[in-house]
């Protein structure tokens, strides 16, 4: 199977996704970006999980830092989705934003354990498997 991401000798990461693959990641990156800015988005809860569950509210500065970093990563991922080569920072933004999208998809669909995942609709399960494959392929070169 051809590699989807290849680390070149100059350090850059070549993206070998076809148009369909880029459409998948573009859609995932875009949803994370929107969810971070929209309190009513179904992914917003995942993106705002408690830091210290024993407290009624988390430190506002920590919450702001998380919001800012998640938004920046998503923005960078969206901005580089057409690129043929990524540097390490861009590839990290791709991986983290895709991982956020993966977990948010699972939480929004109440997939909290292996049983619920295996019992989920095949379309949803296939989408999750697709994102997992992209993530592993990218993680392999980071």
């Amino acid at each position, binding site marked *: 199977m051809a590699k989807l991401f290849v680390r070149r000798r100059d350090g850059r990461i070549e993206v070998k996704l076809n148009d369909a693959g880029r459409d998948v990641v573009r859609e995932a990156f875009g949803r994370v970006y929107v969810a971070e800015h929209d309190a009513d988005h179904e992914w917003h809860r995942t993106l705002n999980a408690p830091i210290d569950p024993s407290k009624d509210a988390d430190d506002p500065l920590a919450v702001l830092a998380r919001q800012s970093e998640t938004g920046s990563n998503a923005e960078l991922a969206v901005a580089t989705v057409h690129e043929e080569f990524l540097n390490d920072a861009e590839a990290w933004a791709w991986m983290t934003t895709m*991982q956020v999208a993966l977990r948010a998809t699972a939480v929004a669909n109440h997939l909290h354990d292996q049983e619920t995942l295996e019992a989920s609709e095949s379309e949803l399960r296939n989408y999750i498997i697709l994102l997992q494959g992209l993530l592993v392929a990218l993680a392999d070169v980071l």
Partner: protein
Amino acid sequence: MPSVKRLRDTSTDSTTVTSADTTVLTERPWNVVVWDDPVTPMKVVVVIFKKIFGYSDNKCTQLMMAVHHEGRAIVWSGDADRAQSYCVKLQVAGLLATIEQDS
């Protein structure tokens, strides 16, 4: 050498260390906990641990396996501010992470 004794005060979050000429108040450490979830690939967890903590491949793999088999693992312990900062980094990277004070 001055004698040192540790007095554990269970009603507070701290341990008092006293000696003949010093008294130091040390807080119980804060733990950064990563929780298992059914979708995150193992390889991704290892890469995230390595990037955020700079741990060796072996340690990252051991921690990942602990998360996978035990449902959670303490991946870092120390002061509250750094624990919170690491937790935010892990959450930004898409992992299910929280902080808790050592019991």
